[in-house]
């Protein structure tokens, strides 16, 4: 393991921004409009928040040599709970709970996300179901649950209260960026100031050894998947707040893949045993920067996915020791 596993993605992020700075006039400009900062850079960070939030949880999950495929579906559930509790549309499954204030509804939605994560954790930690399979289940069934909740309707939330979370700003910066920062600090403290991070790495690195030194793999996995679910819950309310609606079919769709890519691009090995939260964040921002670049440059639809894939290949190649070795051999030969 080298230090700064994310150095290549940071470099590539720099390149992408440089490219934009040169070819897209006004890309780096940040203006103040109505007391809020405004510009493409801000957009990139703002848009990257859901994936970055998921990537925080995913980094821990992957460090335990697991994976959480259900986070996209959990986002849909969380969004449905939040919007549903605020609006209480006629067929809403939880209509027994009555209309709730926005803050309560959102807290309950995050809680719902954590509960989903806990469910994964029980399957994986206690029943030792393989992570891919266990979270695949919620990935598939979770959207069904979200649809059951909303009775298949898009729940639109009128008014601005609900939207404030994602659209409002604090000190000029969009709220999601602050939320992400707070969550990142929380995760950073949890993993550096306590032994939690160490335990996570140890149990992903060598579960037997972890067991021998007294780490309780079950509760650890429970905690990690619950945290991942919590992140998904938060990402879910941000996504719902952003479009002022809960869309069970599309909220968070494919976002689990983005999160996994962000973690991988950030230099964390899928085989577990090490993680880098900073890397995960950089990875998420890099992926979003590429997307935004493609969008602002108006590059055609089919090619978009291919370009994104190429960027990931580039980072992964740069991170791969065998690639460097091949290069070196070529050069000396």
């Amino acid at each position, binding site marked *: *393991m080298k230090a700064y596993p994310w150095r290549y993605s940071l470099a590539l992020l720099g390149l992408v921004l440089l490219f934009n700075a040169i070819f897209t006039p006004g890309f780096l400009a940040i203006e103040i409009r109505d007391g809020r900062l405004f510009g493409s850079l801000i957009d990139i960070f703002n848009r990257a928040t859901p994936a970055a939030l998921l990537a925080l949880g995913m980094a821990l999950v992957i460090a335990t040599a697991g994976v959480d495929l259900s986070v996209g579906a959990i986002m849909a559930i969380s969004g449905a709970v939040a919007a549903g509790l605020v609006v209480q549309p006629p067929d809403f499954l939880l209509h027994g709970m009555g209309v709730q204030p926005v803050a309560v509804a959102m807290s309950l939605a995050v809680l719902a996300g954590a509960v989903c994560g806990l469910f994964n954790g029980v399957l994986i930690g206690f029943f030792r179901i393989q992570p891919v399979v266990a979270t695949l289940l919620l990935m598939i069934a979770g959207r069904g649950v979200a649809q059951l909740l909303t009775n298949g309707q898009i729940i639109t939330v009128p008014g601005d209260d609900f939207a404030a979370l994602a659209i409002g700003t604090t000190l000029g910066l969009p709220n999601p960026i602050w939320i992400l920062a707070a969550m990142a600090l929380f995760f950073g*403290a949890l993993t*550096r*100031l*306590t*032994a939690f991070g*160490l*335990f996570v*790495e*140890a149990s992903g*690195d*060598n579960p*037997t*050894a*972890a*067991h*021998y*030194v*007294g*780490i*309780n793999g079950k509760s650890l996995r429970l905690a990690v998947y619950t945290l991942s679910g919590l992140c998904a819950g938060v990402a879910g309310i941000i996504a719902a707040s952003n479009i002022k609606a809960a869309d069970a079919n599309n909220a968070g769709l494919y976002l689990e893949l983005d999160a996994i890519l962000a973690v991988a691009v950030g230099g964390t090995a899928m085989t577990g*045993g*090490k993680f880098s939260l900073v890397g995960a964040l950089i990875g998420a921002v890099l992926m979003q920067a590429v997307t935004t670049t493609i969008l602002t440059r108006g590059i055609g639809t089919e090619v978009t996915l291919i370009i994104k894939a190429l960027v990931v290949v580039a980072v992964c190649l740069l991170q791969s020791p065998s690639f460097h070795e091949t290069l070196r051999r070529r050069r000396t030969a």
Partner: protein
Amino acid sequence: MASLLRMSGIVKSFPGVKALQGVDFEVQAGQVHALMGENGAGKSTLLKVLTGVYAADAGEIEFEGAAIRPRSPQEATALGISAVYQELSLAPNLSIAENIVIGREPMGPLGIRWSAVRERARGALSRLGLELDVDRPVGSCSPAIQHLTAIARALDVDARLLVLDEPTASLDGDEVDALFEVVGRLKEQGLGIVYVTHFLDEVYRIADQVTVLRNGTLVATDTPVAMPRRALVANMIGREAPPEDAAVARSQGPQGAPLMEAQDLGKRQSVGDINFKLHSGEVLGLAGLLGSGRTETLRLLFGVDRPNSGSLHVHGGAPTLTPRRAMNLGVGMLAEERKTDGIFPNLSVRDNMMIVAQVKRGWLARLPRSAYAQADGKKEELRIATPDLDRPIAGLSGGNQQKALLARWLIAQPQVLLLDEPTRGIDVGAKFEIFGLVERLREQGMAFVLVSSELSEIVHSSTKVAILRDRRMVGDAPEITEEAIMSQIAEGGE
């Protein structure tokens, strides 16, 4: 006086094996208790029952006068039992410091004090006379260092009973001395120590009591004085101990062209100045201290690592080696760390033994069933203790796994076999047989490069010995005796 630990009537079965059949075992405070037995006798299993890794099928455990039944190593640790297991159990991606303190991190008001973590790790290591870069990932260190890390961790615990399962299997003399010094001190402090080893010398150096297991039953327990060497061995193997072989005849000169020849072979930041010629019928012993680069030399010779200076000739040609090509040229290598580099845990013992022969034959031509019968022959020859070769190898005891790995290479019949600590964890009886086997194969024209932390093994089997110091080959030993080699190793070290 009540015993510190009393285990009585311990029974433990695995599918197809009765590992322990009603074993009684007692340890007093302030006593070093050696637990001896052949490979597969049940030593590790007994200790794992004690530390809560396995639950016994029957039997009682009493510790400090109270009945206990630990269900996990965590519970055992909490009770005051600290252990080093036979198979390395460290997290390779974590640093040495993290591996030593994990589970008992020094906390400050602001959470973990990382500087104190390093401090404590350095302290634990210095007790063993070691000074290491504690930020290094443990997986990048040599097996010996890894083992020392595990020991340092166990010694750092505040415990009343210390369990050491073959702690010295990969250590050199100096490290063993340092360990024994610490063990002596702990004993004086009143700790009970259970010590498993296959080195008889160690028993007579530190043990106050010896218990011998055979096939899962207790056969004898007494003081070392009352159980001299031959009696101990006889107890272990259940018959009279065979006489020790005389050292090999070293008279033969080199025959024909060298099978393998290294000239100034080296790899940056690893080892250098490797020079030797290996002929058919020779055993080249590599002697050196811990970390002197013996393993890395073998890695170069087998193509696991690529040299970037000098040349290596095999059968006169100078190929760029990979393990695959080395094998096709008739070179084989038994790796040092059997768990990470050797066994395929989920594959059957038989597949594990046959895989090299199969790889040599190529993937298209599956070995016929009749070839697989060779495995049964080797099982008998090396006395591998298992009821069924078609069960996963993970269920074998450490020493028996090692035997199976050796069998793997013997079945493949290479012309040059590189052996890195081949007897690691192997019981005394089998050791003789293995070196007898090496001797016979050598006489039939095979050549060996032998690395062993046991100088006596090197002296016993080698036809010539090369000395490694500070990762350089500094020349041949003038005379193959322990004293000559020792002084050659030490020379210039000052």
